[in-house]
């Protein structure tokens, strides 16, 4: 099933949202006037805790500032520049420590020498954590797939949430990968299917 996220820039508190429906229902049960219901649902939404947490997670990723190769220039540096400005979406807080990060962008070729510390960094990240495999090399080994020292795809080491193809992907493609990850987090029931 295809994930449909609607307008990505809104905070998902649209009138048709189930959280708004739930709030309206509860206000009606309390006997509130329609004008009061309209006023309250603009600012307050009631929903399951997991859903509210997911809203927070999806709208404020803290990526691990971790570059293995040239993709880091596009994915971590280029997308943070003024032209693309990843901070518009709230994803700009690059963390130098995996213990404070929740998204790992695997930017570049994973060599067999680097594989142990890629896994180690992933394991040091607190749950919930997500991985974006950025570029051909991280997806499958890319042009180096037949090399004796390259891991053919980072998904051999750690679970990957979003595959972002390109060599390297443009910064706007990186932003798109973040948006896809956001959709994935906001729609856990779709992902489970």
């Amino acid at each position: 099933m295809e994930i449909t996220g609607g307008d990505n820039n809104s905070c998902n508190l649209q009138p048709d949202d189930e959280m708004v429906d739930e709030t309206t229902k509860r206000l009606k049960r309390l006997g509130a006037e329609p004008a009061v219901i309209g006023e309250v649902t603009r600012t307050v939404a009631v929903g399951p805790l997991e859903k509210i947490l997911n809203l927070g997670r999806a709208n404020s990723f803290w990526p691990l500032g971790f570059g293995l190769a040239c993709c880091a220039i596009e994915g971590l540096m280029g997308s943070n520049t003024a032209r693309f400005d990843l901070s518009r979406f709230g994803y700009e807080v690059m963390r130098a420590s995996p213990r404070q990060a929740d998204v790992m962008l695997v930017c570049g070729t994973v060599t067999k020498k680097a594989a142990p510390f890629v896994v180690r960094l992933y394991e040091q990240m607190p749950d919930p954590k997500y991985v974006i495999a950025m570029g051909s090399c991280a997806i499958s080994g890319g042009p180096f797939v037949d090399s004796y020292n390259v891991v053919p795809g980072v998904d051999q080491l750690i679970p990957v949430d979003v595959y972002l193809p390109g060599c390297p992907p443009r910064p706007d493609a990186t932003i798109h990968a973040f948006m896809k990850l956001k959709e994935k987090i906001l729609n856990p029931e779709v992902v489970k299917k």
Partner: protein
Amino acid sequence: MTVQTISEVKTEIIAKYPQIELSEAGHFFVPVSQLADIMLDLKVSFGFDFLTNLTAVDHVEHFNVVYNLSKTTGPEMLHIITKVDRNEPKVPSMVPIWGGAVWQERETYDLVGIIFTGHPNLKRILLDDNWEDHPLRRDFQWEGGRD
């Protein structure tokens, strides 16, 4: 300071060490037995104080260990080549002369399998520590990679 051209420097070196062979391309071929002494003298007497590059080439019958020397005080460069036996690829380490040789010699050991005697820490640098072979040797065979 007297200015010498590189050919004058080379002539001077050949005059001092007649066992050095000068190839047509201008490379010095130095026997392994005298490599350490000659290299030290090139640094001390001739001022080649910077080891730009160190690598090795597999010529199937033998290995060539290649040293590129340069000066921080001038534009001259020297290319020193020494032949080593394929079955016993041992050359003296250049770490006591140029400290920067530490990682370059580890890399050459890692990829070609040259053993640098006297190196303080001769272990693999680029490949996994459990790796068995030396991948830049001509007889290296690799099957694998993609699934």
